[in-house]
């Protein structure tokens, strides 16, 4: 069981230098994780590194990861800026130490946990997933993390838990859009149905490319739901609530006709203003065609069952 902490501001109870050590801590975890060789495709693509991560059957090892520089410098992080390339610099002041995660709602074991304590309970795996943005581009990312289900099981969801709500941190000192009320209602909120959240593909990531997550990519803890559009994969999570009813998610609230709760990748269901039939894969050269978008982003075999008998046009 994860250690439960009383809700004393964590800065008061813990030696600050200990938090500074998180980077080392995760690196050490990465190093000691069950050994398996890094997929050769990735080894050729990224700077060589020595970590051996647990191999996951859920990883698309056949895919070649996108060069890391592209993934690090093309992020939609509206808390910082609406520009995908300016977020890299703007996110650098973001404070990720200390970090705690609250798990509450319809669970037997609610609590607030230090990220380090959570990570001690989990085996970190590397999973290569395709990541498809609703804007019509995609990339292939080797995430490092664990199945969300493993964490939820420890909190023991009650039978009344039908949905999971995720909330990003409110840190207006470092997040200009939160400070100035730009564009959306803050903090950012996302949600999943409980069966989606418990699906083994759904992961919480703390790293990518064998290192800890860069701040602009959602450090220190983000969701990755590979069969859904990227905006579902909420960054910098501080709260996970299990709910009886569906939460109202940020984009769905802001533009309900454009962004649904499900947001499953589907080439046949267009966004009202643009087609979702094809996507530009980052890293592909000039004069290469866009790739045909796949239903459920190529994860149909694993997840189509969740939506059996559902009209995907209606529940977009």
């Amino acid at each position: 069981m994860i250690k439960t902490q009383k809700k004393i501001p964590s800065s008061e109870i813990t030696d600050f230098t200990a938090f500074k050590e998180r980077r080392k801590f995760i690196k050490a975890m990465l190093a000691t994780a069950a050994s398996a060789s890094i997929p050769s495709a990735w080894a050729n693509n990224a700077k060589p590194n020595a970590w051996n991560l647990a191999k996951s059957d859920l990883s698309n090892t056949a895919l070649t990861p996108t060069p890391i520089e592209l993934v690090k410098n093309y992020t939609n992080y509206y808390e910082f800026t609406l520009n995908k390339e300016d977020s890299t610099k703007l996110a650098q002041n973001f404070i990720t130490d200390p970090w705690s995660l609250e798990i509450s709602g319809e669970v037997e074991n609610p609590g607030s946990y230090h990220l380090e304590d959570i990570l001690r309970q989990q085996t970190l795996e590397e999973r290569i997933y395709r990541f498809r943005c609703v804007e019509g581009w995609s990339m292939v990312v080797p995430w490092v993390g664990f199945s969300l289900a493993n964490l939820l099981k420890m909190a023991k969801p009650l039978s009344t838990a039908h949905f999971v709500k995720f909330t990003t941190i409110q840190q207006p000192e470092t997040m200009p859009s939160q400070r100035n009320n730009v564009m959306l209602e803050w903090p950012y909120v996302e949600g999943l149905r409980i069966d989606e959240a418990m699906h083994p593909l759904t992961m919480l990531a703390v790293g990518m490319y064998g290192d800890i997550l860069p701040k602009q990519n959602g450090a220190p803890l983000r969701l990755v739901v590979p069969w859904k559009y990227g905006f579902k994969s909420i960054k910098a999570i501080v709260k996970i609530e299990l709910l009886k009813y569906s939460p109202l998610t940020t984009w769905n609230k802001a533009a309900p006709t454009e962004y649904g709760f499900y947001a499953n990748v589907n080439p046949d269901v267009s966004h009202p203003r643009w087609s979702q039939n094809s996507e530009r894969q980052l890293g592909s050269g000039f004069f290469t065609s866009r790739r045909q978008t796949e239903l459920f982003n190529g994860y149909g075999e694993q997840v189509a069952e969740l939506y059996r008998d559902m009209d995907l046009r209606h529940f977009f």
Partner: protein
Amino acid sequence: MDIQIKNRKLVTLVVCLIPLLWLFLDIAFGNLGSNPIQALHIRLGDWSLRFLCITLAVTPIQMMTRWRGMSDYRQMLGLYAFFYATLHLLAYLVVDNNLMWSIIGTDIIESPYIWFGVVAYLIVFALAITSPKWVMKSMGKSWKKLHRLIYVSSIAAIIHYFWQLKGNLAEPLLYSIIIFFLLLFRVLLWKTRHELKEMMIPKGYE
């Protein structure tokens, strides 16, 4: 005098190519960021819209500054709007989609924002092919009517811009404001001319 005008035109011709040169340099030095294909495409679209605005601004600026020479450049500026729009379209067809017509077809049909781009382009295309002096002469009055469609084209281009947006509305808003004032200027001008005309017609002859 004539040579001076010719030189000035040549300078304008070359200056208007700077955005393209700049784009080539950015491609050569890999300065287009993580999604260079989109960046290239967007750059060309932006310049096309900018040239549309500049072309529309010629008459108002000329009237306000009483600098008569500017209308000599209107044709060239308009052709540059067409030029960059054509490159924007070619970038879409060739650089982005590698002429995969099935993907292109679906994309255009399913993306309403592109319909407005197509409308904007068809108009600019029609204006470009009717731009030579001899075509203008042979078309008579209908030439002017046709070329007024540049306003429709710029409005379509603005809608095209707004509708593809995912986040930042500031830039298209700026262009909308510019085009709004350029249009307003024309409407006011037309009204005052109309009123002047009425004033000049002697009573009883209406």
